[in-house]
Each structure stands twice: as structure tokens, then as C-alpha cells.
């Protein structure tokens, strides 16, 4: 497997969409290729960091104000 072929499979590897056979081929490649191993680990970490950090907080008071506004507008449409 070349680095380019590895990269084409990177998303499926991260999303765990690969057959055991392809996984084994990739693992073999990663064992020899430090470059691709770094790409794999840091890309996975990138996703984890974004998934686990709330970037745009909606403070409870703002949330409540917006929620009330939404429901008031819906009720006005309904009646």
C-alpha cells in the first residue's frame, strides 16, 4: 500500500467502515510508515477535540429567551 492509497482510505478507517482485510493491510502500512501513522493519529485527535468541545455556548438565559420567542411565534401562527 502506498501513502496515497492510505490517504484515500483514511476517512473509512476513522469511521470504521473497512473490512478486516483492508484494515490489516492498512495496519501493515502504518507499521512501516511513521508519516501516515502521524496523519492517522492526529486527524483522529482533531475530530475528537472538535467533538468534545463546545465552541459556541448558548447561555441558559439567552436560550430561554430564544425558546420563548420561537414558541410565541409558533403559537401566533397557530391561532
Amino acid at each position, binding site marked *: 500500500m502506498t501513502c496515497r492509497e492510505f*490517504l484515500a482510505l483514511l*476517512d473509512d478507517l476513522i469511521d470504521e467502515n473497512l473490512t478486516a482485510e483492508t484494515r490489516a493491510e492498512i495496519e501493515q502500512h502504518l507499521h512501516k510508515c511513521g508519516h501516515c501513522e502521524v496523519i492517522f493519529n*492526529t486527524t483522529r485527535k*482533531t*475530530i475528537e477535540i472538535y467533538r468534545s468541545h463546545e465552541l459556541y455556548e448558548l447561555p441558559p438565559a439567552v436560550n430561554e429567551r430564544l425558546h420563548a420567542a*420561537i*414558541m410565541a411565534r*409558533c403559537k401566533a401562527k*397557530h391561532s
Partner: protein
Amino acid sequence: MSTIQSIAGQNERHPDETLVERVRAGDVSAYDTLVRKYERRIFRIAQNVTQNREDAEDVMQDAFLKAYEKLDQFQGNSKFYTWLVRIAVNESLMRLRKRRTGKMVSIDEDMETEEGTVPRDLADWAPNPEQNFNQAELAEILRKTIQGLPQGFRVVFVLRDVEGLSTEETAETLGLSIPAVKSRLLRARLQLRDRLSRYFHRKTGVEK
């Protein structure tokens, strides 16, 4: 085993379906439950697309109102949430257009087409690089980094990786083909990784 579970899962009724039916029958309180369930996620998506807090608040309200008004048009062949996200993304793009008058904004802008370029940055990150920053610093880095992505990559990354939509749902929501979603997702992930490397190396003292 997972295949059997997912087939069984498809036959179960999604709890949103019952709520949607109740709203259609005139029960506004059922809509309150749906709004509560998804409002924060819709806000996050709107903020990610518009990159503007005021717009995000407006989009959040308008998207829920529009969904309420158009609930009769909701076919039920997609999930309520996916349908709602689609409305929110379209509303967000409209806001962007208003802000950038004269300049068209679409999900296709700023797209590069070259594929499969292997990143050159070889240096690894520290085991837990985020621990070298306090929460506020880290959030700022993550915001700045994702803001730098082209719009069409950012939306795909947010829907797919942050909000957890499937590739198929992301494609449906954005009106893109599945290969287009996959290609953008790969490029978004690699660009974010590359941009974050700059911060995570500097602080950890690893030479680039």
C-alpha cells in the same frame, strides 16, 4: 451483530415521528418538546455557517418557525432532525448572502478540486496537546481554526463530525452527492489537522 441491530433499529419508530404527528394534529406543546430537543444543535450549526452570533440567533428562530409552518410538507422519508438542519443551513446561507451583498454564497464556493495530496507535516503532537491550553485559549484556537476553512468544507465537517449526521444524511441535507461529501470531509479533516498542528507544536516545543 451490528447489522442485525441496525436492521432492527430501522423498524422501530423514531420518537420524533410521534411528536410530529401530534404537532400536525394541533398540539403545540409537542412542538415545544422538539424545539427543546434540537435548539442548541441548530444554534451551533447556524453559528458555524454564519460565523456571526446575531445571525445564528435569528437563524435558530426562523428555522424553527419555518419548520413549524411547513410541517405539512415534511414527507417523513427523512428524519425530522435532518429536515430541520436542511432548513437551518439554507437560512444561514441566506443570512450570509445578505451580509455579503453582491457576492453569491453557496455551498460550492471556494472549492479546490485537487485530491489526494499527502500532507507534508510529519511532526507528531503531544499525547494530549489540548491540556497545554486553558479552556478559553483552546476554544479560541478551535474557533479560529475552523473559521479558516472554506465554507463548503466547514459545513460538511460540522454536520458529519461534530453533529454526527451520517454521510448520506449530510449529502441529503446539503443537496450534495455522497462522493462530494466524502471528498470534502477528507479535505476538511486534513486541513483542520494541519492548522491545529501549528498551535499544538509551538506550545509543546516540538520542532516543525
